[in-house]
């Protein structure tokens, strides 16, 4: 089947987060993912988008985020979230200490962990000034 590609460029700003998530949800619906996976797609895109809007670009610099959704086959969604900011691979982040009690738990650090748990084929690439994170979503993680 011909591969359908949708691309959206947005300002790397929290004000665009709603649009980024809505775009990702459209991709999930178009790919024929089951409804229970739609919010997973929104969640993963939010985590990646928020990381970029918080850290990728210098204060005051107008940066952008490019989101690309493809459907390589029915029931599979492939997403790339890219920015032209400082080189950074979020997948190198340390795993959070999940068994810790409240007083020993870190306040943050769960975003990329959630991304790992909910996606398949997650990868990072630095390419010609772009940070590119790609992932796949199937009916269920690991399916």
């Amino acid at each position, binding site marked *: 089947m011909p591969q359908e590609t949708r691309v959206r460029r947005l300002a790397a700003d929290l004000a665009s987060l709603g649009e980024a998530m809505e775009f990702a949800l459209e991709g999930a619906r178009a790919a024929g993912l089951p409804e229970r996976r739609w919010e997973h797609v929104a969640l993963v895109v939010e985590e990646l988008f928020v990381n970029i809007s918080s850290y990728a670009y210098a204060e005051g610099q107008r940066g952008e985020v490019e989101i690309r959704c493809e459907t390589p086959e029915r029931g599979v969604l492939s997403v790339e979230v890219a920015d032209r900011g400082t080189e950074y691979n979020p997948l190198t982040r340390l795993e*959070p200490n999940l068994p810790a009690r409240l007083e020993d738990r870190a306040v943050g650090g769960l975003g990329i962990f959630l991304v790992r748990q909910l996606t398949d084929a997650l990868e990072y690439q630095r390419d010609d000034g772009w940070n590119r994170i790609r992932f796949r979503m199937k009916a269920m993680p690991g399916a």
Partner: protein
Amino acid sequence: MEADFFWDSGPKGALLTLATVVDDSGSYVNIQATQYDGGVVLKVAGRMDAVHATTFEEECKAWVAKGAGSVIVDLSELTYISSLGLRSFVVIGKLQQEKGGSFRLCCLTGLVKQVFEITRLDSVFPIHESVEAALARV
């Protein structure tokens, strides 16, 4: 002694405050506070994303600052939460722990329940099936 006055006044079980924030995309969070003997129940409805987590955190912090011994969060109508929302729970939990108060959650469903389980925050906070069950432990 403003906090003491606050806690001794007003009918118990009465709705005290209501905060709603809607963003440009129509996504919203709504927080309804109801005071009971020894605690406050915050019913959070809508979506707790990066934009709305702050609203929840500020509302909780205000109750902690007022001296609410027990803060119970009813999540029955929360449909979405991301890591920044989870972060707010950890922040408030730690604050309440430092103050010697309690922080309990109840009625987790769907994605919210799943995300608490994946991150094992369901074993960090006391979680109850209903508001009544949470209040019974206060």
